[in-house]
């Protein structure tokens, strides 16, 4: 019985530890994105922003299909 309880506790610690590591990793990734403006900005980042700046020539307002 004691062994079973110990195994469960060890498993739980492992689960929570991996959750903690994952959360910290995610936070660090977000922070990296946030400070992108102060560090290296790739040409792709700027081109992505430009895509948002201009309107596509075939852009449409969609209201759904009749059939």
């Amino acid at each position: 019985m004691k062994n079973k309880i110990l195994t469960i506790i060890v498993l739980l610690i492992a689960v929570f530890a991996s959750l903690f590591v994952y959360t910290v990793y995610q936070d660090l990734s977000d922070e990296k994105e946030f400070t992108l403006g102060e560090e290296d900005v790739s040409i792709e980042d700027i081109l992505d922003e430009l895509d948002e700046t201009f309107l596509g020539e075939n852009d449409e307002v969609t209201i759904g299909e009749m059939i």
Partner: protein
Amino acid sequence: MKTIWKKIMVLLLFGSLLPSALAEDAIESSNDDSEPIDEQTLEEVEIMDTRNGAQIRLLQLEQSIQRNIIKGEYIISYLDNNTSLDSSELILILEEMKLLKDEVISADPNASEAVEVFVDLKHDAITLTKEFRETLRNLVTDDVLIETIRARLGPIMDDELDTIGQRIRDRIRDYNTNQLEVLFSTLNESDSTLIERYRNCSLNLSEMKQRIGEQVRNMSKEKKSLVFSEIQEARIRKRIQARIHGDNAKEGFQIRALERVGHRLNNVSQGTRDETLEKAMQNRLHEKIGRGNPLVGE
């Protein structure tokens, strides 16, 4: 010890179910018909801070409504010529759609409430399209017939649609030219040749973006960062403004919807020459007002 074990299990189970429960809530709320503004519409109103941007969105809405009217007319004529089904309900929905199109045409892009008007009229267009589709599905139970009509619809050729399409393309080019000028002022540079070539259609959008890409590529690291943050900042400002307009559009949304139906009721006689159709339209709109909530179908 067993109690502790049970509590741990309950906590773990709750933890694993919580994300899926939250996700279901999010899906349900995004499908809510009474919600006037969705994410797509919020993105669309971002450009409506200028007269040109507002004109583009109103013209695009007119184009989509006109396209659906043509499709609706074809569907009704197909049913009338090939089946004995009663299409009168579909005709009424289409008539209201025509009145809606007139409202879009007469909307003022300069008005301070142009965004709210666009949100309201787009919502009506979606609701009427959905009502037409559902009425058609209730009327035509034969899937083969539905597929036959869908296949026959094909690409639509219409002079009015072509004219609207050309006006939209011209305005989009004006809008992008203006964006290009703002971008160059951000870069503290000028390329009048590029602006002129895009304005007079010698360059298309992707070629123009490619040219800007080349210019950005040659910039210093610091300047790239500055340009990136300035463009991003301008976009975020527009997004915030769109959210504010979205919140404004939600206020008094149902009252405005009732007012629009009342307005259509007054305009029925101008739109139709058929007296029976006019009466049926009046009944339909009276019923909507009587229900007190024209946003919800019968």
